[in-house]
């Protein structure tokens, strides 16, 4: 595979154009004709392929970030607050 746009069919896009559209490309939000042009550029440009892959991997890695929970003390306070509120609502006025 050739690795520079100059050596392939010209998509009419620069690397800068493609880099700016990377998220829209990955999220399938580009108009059909633009998507074809980006695909054409990526087929011939290893640098832009790397860039688009990296943006996708960052997004996937973020999805794996650890979940966060309240500290035991804060959780206890929240449970107490929740129980007190419910008891208050149920109490005869």
């Amino acid at each position, binding site marked *: 595979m050739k690795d520079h746009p100059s050596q392939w069919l010209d998509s009419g896009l620069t690397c800068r154009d493609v880099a700016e559209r990377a998220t829209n490309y990955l999220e399938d939000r580009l108009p059909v004709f633009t998507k074809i042009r980006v695909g054409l550029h990526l087929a011939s440009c290893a640098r832009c392929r790397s860039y688009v892959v990296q943006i996708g991997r960052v997004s996937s*890695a973020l999805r794996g970030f650890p979940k966060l929970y309240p500290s035991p003390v804060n959780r206890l306070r929240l449970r107490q607050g*929740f129980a007190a509120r419910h008891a208050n609502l149920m109490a005869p006025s």
Partner: protein
Amino acid sequence: MNADAIAYTESIGHSPSISSRKSQAVKSSGLTKAEDTLIARLRRGDEGAFDELVNQHHGMLIRMAMGYVANREVAEEVVQDTWMAVIESLDRFEGRSSLRTWVCGILIHKAKDRGVRERRHTTFSAFESYDDDNEEAVDPSRFQQSGEWAGHWAFPPQPWDDQTPEKLLASKQAVDYMQRAIEALPATLREVLILRDVEGVEAKEVCEMLKITETNLYVRLHRARERVRVAVETALGVETALG
């Protein structure tokens, strides 16, 4: 009063009588069946349901709050206040949006308010500047500025062919750099990245939560992803240099 404040006031501003509270039914139009069930359990006082709610959304709230306040400790306080407001106003939740959107709206209002009180005006200056959607995500100096190859890479990304998302997450250096990059993002970029990528919220719901258009969402998301990508690029470069 801004839209967030109005929504917040609508949701917790008045306290109807117990009889009217009990007569309020959740309108299911904006809610999934799972949310409908969860709300019913919450209104019965089911503490397990409340734990589930907290477990589902606490991380999102902490990470969102960090975009508005000085540090993690203050963010924890803001989120604790948010949960207390949720407890107080749960019976007035009408189901016009998802439960997550409603809770997030309360958090944003409280975090902005706390941020202003802390005089952290930089956050809001950044908010204004990042409303300019014409700014490019990728540093223009990474491209050739003139000549036959103008607009093509001058300083291309280094290939990470062996860096799967799992490998990135296993690298303490990469995770540290990513977290620092996220913490350094202005609130407008940070909130879209957290909601869309970290929490996996659908684009339509993110737009509803933040009151932005889908075009605006993806412009911000790409800028945020690029900044985190640069952080990973730096981390991997450091690892290689040390390695």
